[in-house]
């Protein structure tokens, strides 16, 4: 996802300062057959858990996200990645719900990842870090929820890779989840999605500074990571949004340069996005997370998608959201998810939000998402109360 700064966003209307917490667990068995030990998980919480612990919402981040979904860290100019969606009166209303968001394992923002120190060697893991999957990420989050004392989730929600985790949650722990809001996502990565990720990985691994992943303490493979981010960033935009934002405008020049310095505004923008990204993201994590995305196939080993949703509790509610100009995770992929749900007679709302912002729309189109999510959560909470009464 992109680094968006929404115009007119005020610190005053946000939830204010927040803090990332951290917890360590002894070990986590992984899909690969390996075990990750120990496991650190970084997380943030917003709002208050109610007395019967029925208002917990698990928010799940995308490829480049982290535990910091909302509010500000001291000294930060920008709030968390989904700030406009989280807070008093917002979609995930901190006056009503208790939100929890953690950095995925394999990440580079506080949770165990390839940049963490391997206790066996005393050095950073690098590629000795085990390959993790979306189900592994979810199992790690389950450890966290057990630690926090939450055994019931009002909803699980996220965009892109966050949506995949949400789907994994509702199928992996159906007894815990009352509703699921997968956004701009898929039940399995398509060849096109895998292809873009592989281009990004190759850019990193071809950077001489990558050194087989053992670059910690030395010059990191920033140019490779920046190129990976540039290609990724293009897939988050749309033809229309790039037309609107850049057109064919030239950058700091009146005429074409007839050389290979930057000519166009869009080139300069991508270069900037790539460079900024290297300051906050670890190249090895980019390899691990994109690999987890590519491996994701919800029905893998469980037959059809309809069968994959077969264990979901019948009263579970779904809200599937897609965006009309999202060509990375196109609406047809969300419709496939809905088809699998309908095949089980599950209660599902599907909205294809008209937007020109491409895949990034899930971070930008907050009005429409706020409308549907807040009403959806109201009904979900009301039904839950009616059932437990």
């Amino acid at each position, binding site marked *: 996802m992109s680094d968006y700064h929404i115009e007119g966003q005020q610190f005053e209307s946000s939830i204010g300062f927040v803090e990332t917490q951290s917890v360590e667990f002894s070990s986590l068995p992984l899909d690969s057959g390996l075990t990750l030990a120990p496991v650190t998980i970084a997380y943030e919480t917003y709002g208050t858990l109610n007395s019967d612990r029925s208002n917990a919402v698990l928010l799940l981040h995308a490829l480049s996200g982290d535990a910091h979904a909302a509010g500000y860290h001291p000294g930060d100019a920008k709030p968390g990645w989904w700030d406009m969606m989280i807070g008093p009166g917002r979609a995930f209303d901190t006056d009503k719900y208790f939100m929890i968001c953690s950095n995925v394992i394999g990440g580079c923002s506080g949770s165990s990842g390839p940049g963490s120190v391997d206790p066996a060697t005393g050095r950073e893991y690098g590629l000795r870090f085990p390959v993790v999957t979306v189900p592994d990420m979810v199992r790690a989050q389950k450890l966290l929820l057990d630690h926090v004392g939450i055994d019931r989730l009002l909803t699980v929600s996220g965009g892109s890779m966050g949506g995949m985790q949400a789907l994994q949650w509702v199928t992996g722990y159906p007894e815990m989840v009352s509703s699921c809001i997968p956004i701009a996502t898929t039940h399995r990565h398509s060849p096109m999605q895998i292809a873009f990720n592989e281009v990004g990985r190759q850019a990193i691994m071809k950077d001489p500074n990558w050194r087989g992943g053992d670059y910690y303490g030395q010059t990191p493979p920033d140019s490779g990571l920046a190129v990976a981010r540039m290609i990724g960033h293009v897939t988050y935009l749309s033809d229309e949004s790039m037309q609107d934002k850049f057109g064919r405008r030239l950058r700091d020049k009146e005429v074409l340069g007839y050389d290979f310095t930057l000519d166009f505004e869009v080139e300069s923008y991508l270069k900037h996005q790539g460079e900024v990204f290297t300051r906050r993201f670890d190249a090895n994590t980019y390899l691990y997370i994109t690999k987890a995305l590519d491996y994701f196939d919800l029905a893998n080993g469980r037959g059809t998608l309809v069968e994959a949703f077969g264990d979901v509790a019948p009263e579970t509610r779904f809200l599937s959201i897609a965006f*009309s100009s999202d060509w990375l995770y196109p609406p047809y992929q969300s*419709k496939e998810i*809905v088809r699998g749900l*309908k095949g089980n007679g599950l209660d*599902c*709302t599907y*909205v294809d939000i*008209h937007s020109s912002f491409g895949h990034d729309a899930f971070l930008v189109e907050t009005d429409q998402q706020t*409308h549907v999510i807040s*009403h959806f959560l109201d009904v979900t909470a009301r039904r839950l109360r009616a059932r437990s009464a």
Partner: protein
Amino acid sequence: MMGLSNAPAPAPYPADTIARNPHGERLDHVFIVDLVEPGSRVLDLGCGRGTLLKMLVDKKQVRGTGVEIAEERVYAAVEKGLSVYHGDIDEGLSDYPDAMFDYVLLSQTLQQARQTVLLMRDALRVGHRLVVSFPNFGHWRPRLHLLLRGRAPVTHSLPYEWYDTPNIHSLTVKDFRLFADAQGMRVVRSFFIGRTGEAHVWPNLRAEHAVFVLEAGVGYNDPIHAGP
């Protein structure tokens, strides 16, 4: 609410002219709400802003879901607490297993659907009963309009010019009965609405709107009906 969608505004809602009771409820809606048994499972194809489905949920505690193509109307239905699929009615229907619903509603939708036969057959596959309502072109006003003025009817219940109508099928009460019969569908109930109230005498002349309740009839699954 208005202006929430970035999408182009949808076509005007075709059924605003249907007669209402003193509570402001449309008579076709009242008939359908009376018809449906409490706790039924209902699929409303072309649910619009969800007015009918919300009545069914509130008064008959149905387990309902709607299908609607216009984004703005989907938001309005979600605001009512309803579950809605944003898309074409065809794709909204085909993914359901057999016999998922007690009632499938085509309320003021059939005249705008392209694949009439496939749609109705698929509706009777996923639902036990099919409720269809539509504006009646056999009403005396459109008949007179065409006869005396020699122009395509623009009337109270059919308020569109030929070049600007969402109705791609023009049908009468009699047309529909013949069609249902030919399809092996049995008419279980029917209800006819005139300008101000029910019109059960000479409905094809006096009804502006008709509501039919259909089930699979004897021989419905015979090969003669099974294909389009």
